[in-house]
């Protein structure tokens, strides 16, 4: 798992790349928390390169959602691969998160 963050306009984009499984989730959670520590007003998870997720990875999204809600920020998710989108649907996460097909849509949305 590789995590890249970048600022674009008023938005912090966190790109998750690779496998978000139980072996990776602790390090990934730490990096996401570091990104959240700056209390961004807008955060987008770009998942275009994320090709696997398990419940330990889903947990990170839920924690981020709770933190962003607590700081009155907005959180969006874009570019989920279809197989991962299915897992989000099953878990009820598709109803919790604002999800977008493309990064441009998420930036504009």
């Amino acid at each position, binding site marked *: 798992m590789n995590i890249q963050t970048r600022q674009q306009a008023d938005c912090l984009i966190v790109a998750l790349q690779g*496998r978000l*499984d*139980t*072996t990776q989730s602790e390090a990934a959670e730490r990096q996401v928390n570091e990104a959240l520590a700056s209390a961004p007003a807008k955060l987008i998870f770009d998942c275009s390169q994320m090709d*696997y*997720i*398990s*419940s*330990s990875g*889903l*947990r990170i999204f*839920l*924690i981020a*959602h*709770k933190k962003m*809600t607590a700081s009155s920020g907005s959180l969006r998710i874009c570019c989920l691969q279809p*197989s*991962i989108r299915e*897992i989000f649907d*099953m*878990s*009820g996460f598709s*109803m*919790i998160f604002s999800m977008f097909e493309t990064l441009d849509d998420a930036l504009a949305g």
Partner: protein
Amino acid sequence: METPEHTHSLQLSNQIDELSRLAETIDQLQVQWQLPVSLVMPLNLALEEAFTNVVNYAYDDDKQHLIELEFSLSGDTLTVSIRDDGRAWDPTQKEDPDVSLPAGDRPIGGLGIFLIKKLMDKVHYQRIENKNQLTLTKHISQ
């Protein structure tokens, strides 16, 4: 019961790092057994959840334990059994989380077993000779 056309055994120690060997095995079986590529992710996910539950909750000591996986393919039915020598625990009895709750009311975690049940067609638990055996069955549609 008809004889499976293919079988494969995998022994993993009770270390989370072993997940990489599990993923490699699933990739290999996908090729060797000509399984649909679309099966790799859900199978990997269901087995990861089952395996990590055993590693995290089954043992009361710090010793090394072996977790045995048996894959078999018979016609269009793929079966994987996971055996461990941990304390008796039937994950199929765990109550499903309410996935319709808003984010603020959602507990962090508790999705693993639910996902196994959603992704597989059948999940069956047995306690056999002081071992837990969880058997996952998936009917393959090409």
